[in-house]
């Protein structure tokens, strides 16, 4: 909250190689995923990741509205990423902005790359992502939430989509940037991985890094995604698990 008027760049990496919150360069923030967090969506998930809180809901496959978006051979995948007005330090004015529209587009396309949309021609799969509390990496948190929500909605797809941002701060390549590292760092590189194929279906970069740094960053990101993948699978197991203790109750 000290960003207003703050000119001092915080020390992002200590001489011992520790980050401002004590993490090592390859460490994720704590992540907790609740599958099926909402009652009225076909699928949903709530992700608490560091200081991010993101809710995602999936509706569909269902009839397409507006109808002119209907595609004859596959489901149209629509995504709306939105930030609540109170999710950031400076109140965000409600409504569409260019950043949210761009993020919505690249997330929809990432899912279009893994969802078996051709099984549901002329329908729509609608993904809604609401950022309730933001602290860097909300598009990745939103993507992870939406991916678990899609699985919870029973949508067929090649795989879950773990996502994470890698970046450069204090001269080092670091995994899973938090707000100060995002604000004062040198680069931010969000990505989403298809673990089954090892390919990336979302990749953006802001800032600058060398070829060598990029190679390191990609490795680190893939590694981070594989860790998140396990948390995502566990969230889905927990939702549908048989509770042995209660089984005899």
């Amino acid at each position, binding site marked *: 909250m000290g960003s207003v008027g703050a000119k001092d760049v915080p020390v992002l990496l200590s001489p011992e190689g520790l980050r401002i919150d004590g993490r090592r360069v390859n460490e994720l923030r704590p992540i907790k995923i609740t599958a099926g967090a909402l009652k009225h969506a*076909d*699928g949903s998930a709530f992700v608490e990741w560091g200081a991010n809180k993101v809710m995602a809901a999936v509706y*569909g*496959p*269902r*009839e397409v509205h507006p109808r002119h978006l209907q595609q*004859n051979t596959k*489901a149209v995948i629509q995504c709306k990423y939105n930030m609540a007005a109170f999710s950031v330090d400076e109140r965000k004015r409600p409504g569409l902005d260019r950043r949210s529209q761009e993020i919505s587009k690249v997330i929809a396309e990432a899912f279009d790359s893994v969802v*078996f949309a051709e099984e*549901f*021609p*002329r*329908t729509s799969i609608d993904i809604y992502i609401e950022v309730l509390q933001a602290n860097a990496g909300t598009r990745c948190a939103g993507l992870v939430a939406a991916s678990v929500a899609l*699985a*919870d*909605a*029973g*949508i*067929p*797809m*090649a*795989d*879950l989509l773990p996502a994470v941002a890698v970046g450069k701060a204090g001269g080092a390549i670091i995994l899973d940037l938090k707000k100060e590292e995002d604000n004062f760092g040198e680069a931010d590189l969000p990505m989403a991985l298809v673990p*089954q*194929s090892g390919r990336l279906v979302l990749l953006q970069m802001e800032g600058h890094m060398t070829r060598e740094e990029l190679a390191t960053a990609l490795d680190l990101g893939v590694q981070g995604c594989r860790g998140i993948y396990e948390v995502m*699978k566990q969230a*889905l*197991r927990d*939702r*549908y*698990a*048989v*509770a042995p203790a*209660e*089984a*005899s109750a």
Partner: protein
Amino acid sequence: MKPGPGTYRVGGRVYASVLGLLSRHPPLVQVVPLSGRYIPKPNDVVLGTVTDVQGTFWLLDIGAPRWAPLHMTGTPWKIEIGETDQYLRVGDSVVVRVENLDPTGRIGVTMLGEGLGKLEGGSIVNVAPARVPRVVGRGGSMIQTITRRTGAQVAVGQNGRVWVNGDPEAIHRVREALRMISEEGQRTGLTERVDSYLRATGRSGEQGLEEPPNESARRDAPAAPYASSPPSEGSDEEHDGNADGWHDEND
């Protein structure tokens, strides 16, 4: 292993494509979904709600990805073009059978056949389509328990929509039993728990009785005309019992 429903194959390996329970029937491997909308299959009997009326057909919401058109020739009525709204209106509930599915996703349904038609009275309860085999139970055991203990008439659509008819108390107890099945469908001993709930909530005169007094009269009631045969994958004994949809199998 041969990839069955709910799976796909890449480079000699079979992967799950939906969240569900792994089921191996060598050489076939499949994943039975735990969630999701109703995916129609030919001959499924389903409950639908009229969402739109056109000159020669109605559109039904059957909980599927698309609305299902019911053409006027698929009804027992002799209808003139433009008179469709005199027979079924928006909000009416019907029991129909899935007749055909075409590659464009169109779901053809018919109301011609035994047990099909417009529903009158009673109430409607929705359960997840993946829970339908549990609502019906092995050999219809669950649904028979429910109808026997409540005296209600119950019809289960394959799409998870359940029509319940009877006195308000009976409908309420069926609703609660269905809620239990929805929430506890993965656990064993469910039929016994539902049975003991229904016995405990029976009218005071019935409490502790092995059979409700009106049992014999109810035997003739159409217990579950639309849920005659649960699909074979419905029983959990055939599954490994883990919910790990992203488990891969070597070919």
